[in-house]
């Protein structure tokens, strides 16, 4: 049985408190958007979830590089853990975006560049999990996983910049005046504060979940090694 570090318990409580505060800000502090109405409140956690998705994939790529240079299995666990969290949050981002789109664009889905690249990114990382399932040897699995995490990361900047590079109806939150952007998003100071606080909260959620997931990964590694030893 693993003992839980005290710092992790502190992080759990801080993250939970931030999450409650952020939720309160979204529903009771941020003003009602004049045109879209209540559905605009989805935006705060929708973007924050997308941020966590991309941050996770960046961490996974960095961990992949470190694994390839050190061949220390703990970096493989970090990479896998980050990708799993990234998949969950990118999924939240895509589905909540689709729900927001229904009353605003009058459709659940459109093959807009941002939506398409985000979906391709999600599928690329879902395939990463499938690839790992198909490889028995732990070292080979880790090596393939590291290379995949690095190459797969190409989809992340492509998704981020898709709304800037191509004509899109998706709003651009950061730098709305860029040429070629069809979407626009003006926030009041209270909306901006809620948005920034949501981003901070979700960054804490990412750190907390990553730590927990790494602990599960280490435990799984230990069980796998013991199982192989028992079979021998």
């Amino acid at each position, binding site marked *: *049985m*693993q003992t839980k570090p005290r710092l992790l318990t502190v992080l759990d409580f801080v993250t939970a408190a931030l999450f409650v505060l952020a939720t309160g800000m979204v529903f009771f502090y941020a003003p*009602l*958007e*004049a*045109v*879209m*109405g*209540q*559905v*605009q*409140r*989805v935006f705060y*956690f*929708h973007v924050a*979830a997308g941020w966590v998705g991309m941050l996770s994939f960046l961490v996974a790529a960095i961990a992949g590089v470190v694994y390839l240079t050190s061949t220390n299995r703990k970096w493989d666990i970090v990479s896998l853990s980050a990708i799993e969290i990234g998949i*969950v949050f990118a*999924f*939240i981002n895509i*589905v*909540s975006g689709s*729900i*927001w789109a*229904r*009353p605003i664009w*009058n459709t659940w889905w459109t093959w807009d560049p941002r939506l398409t690249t985000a979906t391709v990114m999600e599928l690329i990382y879902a395939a990463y999990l499938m690839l790992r399932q198909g490889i028995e040897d732990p070292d080979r699995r880790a090596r393939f996983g590291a290379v995949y995490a690095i190459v797969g990361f190409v989809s992340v900047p492509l998704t981020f910049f898709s709304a800037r590079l191509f004509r899109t109806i998706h709003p651009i939150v950061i730098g709305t005046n860029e040429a070629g952007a069809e979407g626009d998003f003006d926030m009041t100071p209270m909306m901006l504060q809620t948005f920034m606080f949501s981003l901070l909260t979700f960054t804490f*959620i990412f750190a907390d*979940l990553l730590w*927990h*997931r790494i*602990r*599960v990964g280490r*435990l*799984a590694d*230990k*069980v796998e090694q*013991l*199982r192989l*030893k*028992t079979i021998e």
Partner: protein
Amino acid sequence: MFFLQDAPANTVNYMIAGYAVIFGVMLIYLISLNLRQRNLNQDLEVLKDVEEKD
């Protein structure tokens, strides 16, 4: 669709659906992490017992 309106659109149902997905998926992931940790701890105990008997 919203150009001629003088009040915000009534989109409360979509907001509820959006947050149901956000909170729901996060909760499912937390439960899944917890269950995996519990199962792995049980597996570890069993394997340790087997190793000791051998």
